[in-house]
């Protein structure tokens, strides 16, 4: 397994898209620092970039990479290797490289923006998003043998988590405005790792005071140590569950 990971990781690092991704993160990150004075505004902007870019890059890049390496995968199958070993090494190498690039790409701007502990939390959340969306991408890739279908659905997943989910939540809140829905909204946010991570980071910044009563409800959970722990565990679950399902599917799949 180690050898496969090593091979895939070196192959990924040489990939031009990855280098371009790193450059993009640096340019936007440092560009923001030079434009904005306040460390908190920089942090919020970096958070927005993470929300937008991380899921998309992870989903699209991982799924294309999987399809491209499909024949290599078949070749490896001729060897006496368990299927789960293959998929785990795929997942691990993708996670290593993409998360590494993310940390390098935004870690430096965060370091220079004096964001402190909140910056570290942002990086941690972003890394977990990487793990989550790579897992979802592999799930889609295994589910759909057809490239177009796989790509289409992974984009749909992106749109769903970034836009549609929030839209539905907003609609729900509009219609049930008369009821005390703060708690409910809190639980609903568990269903979207992007919302979960975003609120977690926001709650550690001054922006929390903008959120009034609902902010206070969130703050109770998201600013306490156990709450932060719970959110991180939930995010880890979001990474583990799709990936373990994809292993199961991969084991049964007719290659």
């Amino acid at each position, binding site marked *: 397994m180690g050898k496969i990971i090593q091979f895939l990781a070196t192959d990924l690092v040489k990939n031009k898209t990855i280098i371009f991704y790193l450059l993009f993160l640096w340019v936007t990150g440092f560009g923001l620092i030079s434009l904005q004075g*306040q460390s908190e*505004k920089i942090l*919020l902007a970096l*958070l*927005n970039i993470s*929300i*937008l870019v991380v899921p998309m890059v992870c989903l699209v890049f991982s799924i294309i990479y999987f399809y491209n390496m499909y024949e290599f995968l078949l070749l490896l199958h001729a060897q006496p290797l368990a299927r789960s070993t293959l998929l785990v090494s795929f997942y691990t190498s993708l996670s290593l490289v993409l998360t590494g690039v993310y940390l390098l790409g935004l870690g430096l701007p965060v370091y220079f923006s004096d964001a402190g502990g909140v910056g570290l939390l942002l990086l941690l959340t972003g890394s977990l998003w990487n793990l989550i969306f790579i897992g979802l991408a592999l799930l889609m890739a295994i589910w759909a043998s057809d490239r177009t279908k796989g790509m289409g659905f992974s984009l749909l997943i992106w749109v769903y988590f*970034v*836009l549609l989910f*929030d*839209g539905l*939540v*907003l609609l729900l*809140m*509009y219609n049930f*405005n008369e009821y005390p*829905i*703060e708690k409910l*909204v*809190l639980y609903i*946010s568990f269903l979207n790792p*992007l*919302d979960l991570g*975003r*609120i977690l980071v*926001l709650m550690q910044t*001054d*922006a929390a*005071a*903008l*959120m*009034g*009563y*609902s*902010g*206070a409800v*969130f703050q109770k959970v998201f600013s306490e140590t156990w709450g932060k722990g719970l959110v991180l565990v939930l995010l880890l679950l979001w990474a583990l569950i799709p990936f373990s399902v994809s292993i199961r599917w991969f084991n049964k799949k007719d290659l």
Partner: protein
Amino acid sequence: MSAWKPFILCLMTLVPCWGNAKTIDLYPGEGRVISDAILLAAPYDTLVLKEGVYRENSIAVDKPLVLLGEEGAIVDGQMGDEIFVIVSDDVSLENLTLKNVGVSYLKDRAAIRLNRVSNVTIRNNHLLNTFFGIYLQKSNECLVDGNTIRGAAEEESRAGNAIHIWQGNRIRVTHNTLSHHRDGIYFEFVDESYIAFNQSRDNMRYGLHFMFSNDDTYENNVFQNNGSGVAVMFSNRISMENNEFLDNWGGASYGLLLKEISDGTISGNRFQSNTVGIYAEGANRLVLSQNLLQNNGKAMDIKGNCMDNRIIENNFIGNTFEVLTNSKSNLNHFEGNYWSQYSGYDLDRDGVGDLPHRPVNLFALITDKVPAAHMLLHSFLVSSLEVAERMFPQFIPEQLIDSQPQISPYPYDFD
């Protein structure tokens, strides 16, 4: 005869300090040193408190006297009742250090109370751990200048106000430093007064709080890091200029809360890092001009019951939300402000944007109606809705526009 009048007038004012005005030195000792001295003193005498600790409270100043403290003169109320109760006109209290007035739930105990007097001067005193600091009650033409008042308040219900004025006219409150009380300055029914160069910081509730007080002027004050900022209510013809409202940050904090207030001017002020910069409810015919609103959560929350206010030539820089309202119509006038969120262009290079600016933010409107929607703050959905709404306004009030948005901020000097 008429030529003699001014002379006689002069004589009359001079007479008191002519004949028998003495200076009496006091030294700390057993018993009620200050009270006894006041009892023996003649009107217009000067009592000089020498260095040391005077353990005394409930000192009634019932004749016109000057009380001067030398350096190190401390009057300790021993957590008991009020220290000085001034019931005579023309008293002056200077350079004293007063401390330790006990908390009472029945009586608003103050270190210095002025009761129905006029022409009293309270200057350069230090008040430490006094429940209420200086309490002016039905007094006119008094001066409160250069005092440092620092409380030890830990909870709002056990805290008093630093300077509390209840009914008064033509009072000057200047150069005071107020902190760790409930309200820094509290006014009720105080007219034609002048409040300037005060620093009100770290108070539990409001830095400045006034109600039913008309024709007052507030200048060059700093209100920083108070629990809920500054609240001004039910007052007319107020002028607030060159003040600073800073760091009032919290779930229910405002830089400046205006409620039922009319015909005032608010100009040259700096509102920085407040949850809500200016919150206006029932405010009418105010002129808000040449202010700087920077890095606030919501720069301005102006409710639908505000009418005929003119918001002109202000700088709105780096606020999360610029203007928030709860009405679809707009009865106020926005013109010639600089908005850092303005995204229009200036083809003719005259410094004024060619497209009007809509400062109201859709998300701010949504969260005003549906508070739970705050959970979507800074999400991609919100930013995309925002862009769509600015292009094709559906929900934001269509008339609330600045038709003359500036391209670059005004060069106001705020240092």
